[in-house]
C-alpha cells in the first residue's frame, strides 16, 4: 500500500488518523493542529489573564505532562504572560509516587518551571501510609478519595495561587457524563462538562484546557514530542459506575470514534437544560457511591451499583405500598406519591413533595479549613477529626465538593491508530 499523503499540507506522509474526524495528517501538522486547538480553547473561554500565576496539577502522567508542555509552548508562542508552576501532591504511599515524582522533577527541569511538591503530611498531618496503619486497608479508599480531591486546591492555596489547571481530557468528560447519567446525578453531570469550575465559596479556580482533546491524541502528542512521562498502571479498578460508563464509552468509540466529542457536546447541552432547582442539589444515588468508596480496590466487589440498585428497589417497594393503599382497583385514580417513581415527567409542582429525596445543598465554607463545603465541617476535616481521635470513621456525609476523578491515568490506552503507511 503506498503511503498516504497528509490531508493538510498535502506534502508529508500521513502518520496520524485523527479520531474526531478521521483526517489523515502528518506528524508536524498533527502537533500544530493539536496545539492550536488547545490555544483556541484557552482563548475562546478566556481561561487566563496576563500575569496570572497558574498551578499545573502534575502527576507525571501523560495528561498533565502534555498539558505542561503545551502550556509552556503556547505561553511563549502567543505571549500569554503566564507564570506557570508545577504542583504535585505526594500522598505519602511508600514506593507508589517515587517514579512519578521523579518524572515531574525532570519535567520541571525540561520545561524550566518551578515545582512544588506538597505532601499529605503538610496538608493533613497524615500520610496515606499512616492513615492505612491507623484505619486498616479496608477503609482507606474513603480517605484517599476525599483527601485527593482537596489536595490540589489546598496545595495551591498554600502557594498563594488561585488557579489550578488539570489534565482532564475529552474521554474523562465523556465518561463522567455517562457515569452521572447512570447514577442519576445531574448536578455533577453539569459540573463535569464545564471547562471552569469554581465556586463563590472557594478562592481556587479550576480549569481543564484539554477538555476537548482526545486521550488518543494526547498519547500521540506525547509520543511524537518525545515527552518524558510516567505510565502508571493504577492498582485500583474503577468504581463500579465509572467502570460501567468506561466500558460503554470504549464500545461507542469503536463504533464511531467521534463519539467522545459527541458525548461531550451532549453533556454541555444537557447541562444547559438542568433546571435551577435541580442544579444545586445532589441526589441520594450519588451519595451512596461515595459511601462505598471512590477508588475501589479490586477485591471489594460490594460495589456502588449494587448499593444504589438496592436503594432504588427499596424506594420502589415503598412507592408500591403507597399505591396499594391509595389505588385498590385497576382503574387508577390520579395520584402523586412522594416518591420520584410516581412523579410525572416535568411535573414541577411535585418537586417540593419528594420527602427529602432531593436535598438542596447550600455551598458554604468549612469552618475549620475554609474549603468550600455544603456541611459546616468539610469531609476532609471530619475525616481528620476521626483520625485524630485515633478511631476509625463510621459514616461520612457527602457534599458536592468532589470533582470528577481524572481517570486517564488508570485507563489503558489500547489500539491507537498510528501510521497510515
Amino acid at each position, binding site marked *: 500500500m503506498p503511503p498516504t499523503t497528509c490531508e493538510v499540507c498535502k506534502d508529508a506522509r500521513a502518520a496520524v488518523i485523527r479520531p474526531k474526524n478521521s483526517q489523515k495528517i502528518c506528524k508536524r501538522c498533527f502537533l500544530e493542529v493539536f496545539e492550536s486547538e488547545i490555544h483556541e480553547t484557552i482563548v475562546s473561554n478566556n481561561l487566563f489573564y496576563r500575569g496570572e500565576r497558574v498551578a499545573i496539577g502534575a502527576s507525571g502522567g501523560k495528561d498533565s505532562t502534555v498539558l505542561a508542555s503545551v502550556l509552556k509552548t503556547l505561553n511563549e508562542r502567543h505571549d500569554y504572560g503566564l507564570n506557570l508552576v508545577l504542583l504535585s501532591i505526594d500522598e505519602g504511599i511508600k514506593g507508589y509516587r517515587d517514579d512519578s515524582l521523579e518524572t515531574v522533577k525532570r519535567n520541571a527541569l525540561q520545561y524550566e518551571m518551578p515545582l512544588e511538591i506538597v505532601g499529605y503530611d503538610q496538608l493533613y498531618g497524615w500520610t496515606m501510609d499512616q492513615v492505612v496503619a491507623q484505619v486498616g486497608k479496608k477503609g482507606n479508599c474513603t480517605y484517599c478519595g476525599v483527601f485527593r480531591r482537596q489536595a490540589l486546591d489546598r496545595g495551591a492555596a498554600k502557594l498563594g495561587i488561585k488557579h489550578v489547571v488539570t489534565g482532564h481530557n475529552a474521554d474523562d468528560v465523556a465518561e463522567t457524563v455517562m457515569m452521572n447519567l447512570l447514577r442519576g446525578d445531574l448536578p455533577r453531570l453539569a459540573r463535569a462538562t464545564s471547562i471552569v469550575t469554581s465556586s463563590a465559596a472557594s478562592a481556587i479556580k479550576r480549569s481543564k484546557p484539554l477538555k476537548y482533546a482526545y486521550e488518543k491524541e494526547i498519547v500521540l502528542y506525547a509520543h511524537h514530542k518525545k515527552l518524558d512521562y510516567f505510565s502508571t498502571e493504577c492498582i485500583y479498578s474503577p468504581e463500579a459506575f465509572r467502570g460501567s460508563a468506561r466500558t460503554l464509552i470504549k464500545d461507542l468509540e469503536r463504533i464511531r470514534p467521534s463519539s467522545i466529542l459527541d458525548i461531550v*457536546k451532549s453533556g454541555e447541552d444537557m447541562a444547559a437544560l438542568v433546571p435551577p432547582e435541580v442544579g444545586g442539589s445532589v441526589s441520594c444515588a450519588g451519595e451512596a457511591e461515595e459511601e462505598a468508596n471512590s477508588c475501589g480496590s479490586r477485591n471489594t466487589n460490594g460495589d456502588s451499583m449494587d448499593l444504589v440498585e438496592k436503594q432504588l428497589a427499596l424506594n420502589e417497594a415503598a412507592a408500591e405500598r403507597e399505591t396499594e393503599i391509595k389505588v385498590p382497583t385497576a382503574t387508577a385514580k390520579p395520584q402523586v406519591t412522594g416518591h420520584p417513581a410516581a412523579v410525572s415527567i416535568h411535573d414541577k409542582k411535585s418537586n417540593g413533595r419528594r420527602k427529602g429525596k432531593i436535598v438542596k445543598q447550600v455551598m458554604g465554607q468549612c469552618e475549620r479549613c475554609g474549603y468550600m463545603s455544603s456541611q459546616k465541617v468539610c469531609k476532609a476535616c471530619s475525616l481528620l477529626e476521626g483520625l485524630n481521635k485515633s478511631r476509625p470513621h463510621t459514616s461520612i456525609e457527602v457534599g458536592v465538593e468532589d470533582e470528577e476523578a481524572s481517570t486517564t491515568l488508570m485507563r489503558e490506552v489500547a489500539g491507537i491508530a498510528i501510521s497510515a503507511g
Partner: protein
Amino acid sequence: MDDPATTDLCVDCRERDASLSIRNRRLCSACFMRYVTSKVLKRMESFRFKTLSGDDRRRLLLPVSGGVSSLVLLHVLDAQLQRQIASRNRTAYDLVVLRVVLPEDEGSTTLKGDYEELARKFSAHRILPLLDLQAVFKLDTHIERDFEHLGLRRHGSESDESFLNRMLSCATSVTARADLQSILLQRLIVSAARQHGCESVVWGHSDSRLAALVLADVAKGRGGSVPSTIADGPSLHGINSNYPMRDLFKTELQSYAQLVPDPLLAKVADSGETTAPPTAMRHTSIDTLLRTYIHSQGEKYPGIMANVVRTASKLDGRQASTITATCPVCIRLIVRSQGLLNPDGNLCYGCDRMRNDIKS
C-alpha cells in the same frame, strides 16, 4: 423473612399463590396483570371522559411495530375502551392503529398475515392499511425540502421507493443509516397522525426502550434533544406524544404477553434483544449497542436502568436561554450551549454529525 416455600402468597391480594417476582414483590398473575394495566392507565389520565368538552371526538394514533410493547399497549387500551362501551356505551377516545413496513421487513412472510390477524382481533378500532416507509414523501410535505440540508435530493423522476433506498444507502455508517431511518419513521408516523386527525401519538415505548433512547441520544451528540425524545405532551411536530408504557420494563411486558391468553401476544412475547444475533462492533449501530447495554445491565440493575429515564426527565427543554431554533431534519430544539462544538449551519449537532456520514 418467611420461608417462601410455605408462604409464597401474592403480596397484593394475599389470597392466591404468587407466581412472579416483580420489582422484589411476589405477585400472582392476576395481580400482575392489574399492575401492568394500572401503570398504563395512570399515564392515560389525560384522555379521560372528564377532559372531554361537548361532542369532541378525540383520536389517538397507536403505531405498532410488531414488537411486544406496542401490542401490549394496544391490548390494554382495547380492554379499557371495551369497558367504557360496556358501562357508558361510548368511549373517551378513538384509537387509530398504524403499522409501517420498514426496509428490513421486506421479504417477511408473516408480516402481512400477522397484521390482518391484528386487524380482525381489534376490529373495533380504525386499523389503517400497512404503510411503506417511503409514504413519508407523500404525507410529509416538507421532508424533501428539509432533507436537502443533508445533501439528499431526488433524482429527476426517481420513484419514492428508489429515492428512499438510495437515501439510506448514502449513509456510510450503520449508525447514520439507523439515525436517518428513525427520523423518517418518526416523521411518517406524525404525518399520518395529522392526516387522520389524531391529536396525539401514543407510543409503546417501555421504560427500558426510553432509557436506551436517552443513552443513544447522548452518545450521538443529541443530548439536547433528550427532553423531546421522552417527554409526554406537545412536540414541535404540532402533534402530542405520549408514552403510557414509560413505567414498565420490557421484561414485564414480555411476562404480560406470555400470560394473556391471546395467540397474537404469545407470538411476540419472546421477541426482543435476546434473539438478536451477536454482530461485530463495526456493524452495530449506536442505537443497537445501547439497547443491548440497557437489556444486559437491566438484568442485574433494573432500578438503575429505570432511573436513567427518571433522571433525564428532569431536564427541561423549556430553558429558553440556550435554545435558538428548531432543527429542520429531526424537528427538535437546537441547544446552543457554551462550548466549542456548535456546528455552523442550521442543523442540530446530532444531525450535523449524521450528515458527516452521508455521502450523496
